[in-house]
């Protein structure tokens, strides 16, 4: 396709995050991945994965992600209750000479099975979600999906990010969950660079500040993309200027872009002006990201 750059980079991991949902993380990560091919797009927003709605990838592999759950052999159980006293999550109860396990409370730490003096507890696998791998034009699309009601998407994110070693000479765009909770930290921990997406509102600044603190805590190089920019005051731009943060680009609020996005269309495929915006964003990333020689990540 004309206009696409054959990215001469190593496996560079770029995490896209924002303090809040709806600011444009998916817009930015999907369109960057589509503009700078061949590339990889990883959807770490496992509670509400949306990237696949845009890419509509041809799925060639699906893998269940499991965690370990305790399983009891009541014949061996003595009723000593050491497992119940140990469990920090109150996932065990002992009623009428039977141990009851509440799987939805269990954090899979393995402690109860470890300490049972009668070896009455073993572990079995329980599915919590899945990873889907597919292809959409020149983009490898990797999606994580958490089953509703499950506690933590972190094991799925770990599985998704483990795929990175399979890709060389191409950028990997990681679409992160919103916020700054532990699941977001897990998504950015291996990133080489972070793109923070912010809205030009007072809410936007407040939320930007949260992820700004997060990337500084993790010592990640980062830059900001201002999305949905309107004429007039832009509190997020002022925040960046005050804190001396690099603004990688501004995406204007634009009805056509909004409509394409709401119809789950990839803007850079539909109109050259959007391709130009995202290519210019890509150009703003530090030069060393563009032409680093192949070497394994230091982490």
């Amino acid at each position: 396709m004309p206009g696409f750059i054959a990215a001469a980079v190593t496996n560079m991991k770029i995490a896209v995050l924002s303090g809040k949902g709806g600011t444009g993380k998916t817009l930015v990560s999907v369109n960057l991945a589509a503009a700078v091919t061949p590339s990889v797009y990883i959807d770490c927003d496992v509670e509400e994965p949306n990237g696949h709605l845009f890419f509509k990838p041809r799925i060639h592999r699906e893998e269940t992600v499991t965690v370990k759950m305790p399983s009891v052999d009541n014949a061996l159980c003595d009723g000593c209750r050491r497992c119940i006293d140990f469990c920090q999550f109150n996932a065990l109860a002992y009623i009428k000479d039977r141990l009851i396990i509440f799987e939805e409370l269990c954090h899979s730490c393995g402690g109860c099975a470890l300490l049972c003096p009668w070896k009455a507890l073993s572990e079995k696998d329980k599915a919590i979600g899945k990873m889907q791998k597919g292809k959409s034009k020149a983009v490898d699309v990797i999606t994580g999906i958490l089953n509703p009601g499950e506690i933590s998407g972190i094991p799925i994110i770990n599985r998704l990010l483990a795929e990175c070693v399979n890709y060389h000479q191409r950028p990997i765009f990681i679409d992160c969950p919103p916020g700054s909770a532990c699941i977001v930290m897990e998504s950015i921990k291996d990133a080489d660079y972070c793109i923070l997406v912010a809205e030009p509102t007072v809410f936007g600044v407040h939320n930007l500040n949260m992820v700004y603190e997060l990337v500084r805590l993790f010592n990640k190089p980062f830059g900001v993309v201002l999305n949905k920019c309107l004429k007039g005051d832009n509190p997020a731009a002022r925040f960046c200027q005050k804190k001396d943060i690099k603004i990688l680009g501004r995406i204007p609020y634009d009805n056509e872009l909004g409509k394409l996005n709401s119809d789950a269309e990839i803007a850079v495929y539909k109109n050259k002006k959007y391709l130009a915006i995202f290519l210019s964003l890509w150009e703003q990333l530090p030069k060393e990201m563009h032409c680093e020689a192949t070497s394994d990540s230091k982490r």
Partner: protein
Amino acid sequence: MKQLLILSGKGGTGKTTIASAFIKIAAVKVYADCDVDAPNLHLITAQRSQPTKTDYYGLPKAQIDPRLCIKCDCCRKYCRFNAVMVADYYKIDAFACEGCGVCALVCPVKAVSLKPAVAGELMLYTDDDKVFSTAQLKMGSGTSGMLVSEVKKQMKKAAVATDLAIIDGSPGIGCPVIASLSGVDMVLIVTEPSISGISDMERIVATAAKFGIKTAICINKYDTNPVNAKKIEQYANDHKLAFVGMIPFDAAAVAAVNSGQTIVDIDCPSGAAVRSVYDQTIKILFHQNKK
């Protein structure tokens, strides 16, 4: 006191903008912000006084006493959450630690213990005989559902005698949303006419249905995609959910919010539309019987 919860599923649909408008229209005296990951409501409601702050403790976290540690590596080997870091000495990564206690269990010299950990902060504003309950979850914490429950508990405890309380809920479909839902009298789902917005709306409707709570839907920024807006209205009808109105995209709304005002403080199209949505919602909340 009836509790109205405003949810959105997807973030960025305008939930907080609409919640603040409702609070202004009805001169509500009791309200709460349950989006403890990224609380925004206080930015529009212009609180004058300082809040009462309370530390919120989540799950305890492990700590290694370097004076006792013999670097046997057992804790790191058994930790399922990659929370043991090794540098000059063994240290727990508090962000990764889930507080399970396995490290303390396996340590042969009792160098590891679980200690209470502050996971966030609750805030209660009580100026002008109004009650506003909110909280901020600390970065990297995992127990946001519990903190949401504490926000609501704090609101109920401090609540003055009044008819209506408005709760700005959490985005998503996970445990903070479920915590927001418990005990409320009605939920208003604010959606936007995008494919992802519709997909998230469906998940939220399914979640609310489990609680048997009166549910209504409204569309924000409907004119950004009228075709999808029609689909949402159809969905509401098909599922016998109250459809309470539509609000247009409005640049004036952004300007209002940026200057700390609600959309009903100025004269604008979205302000007029939200008043109608409010009227329809209140009719159902106070006058309709549960299905």
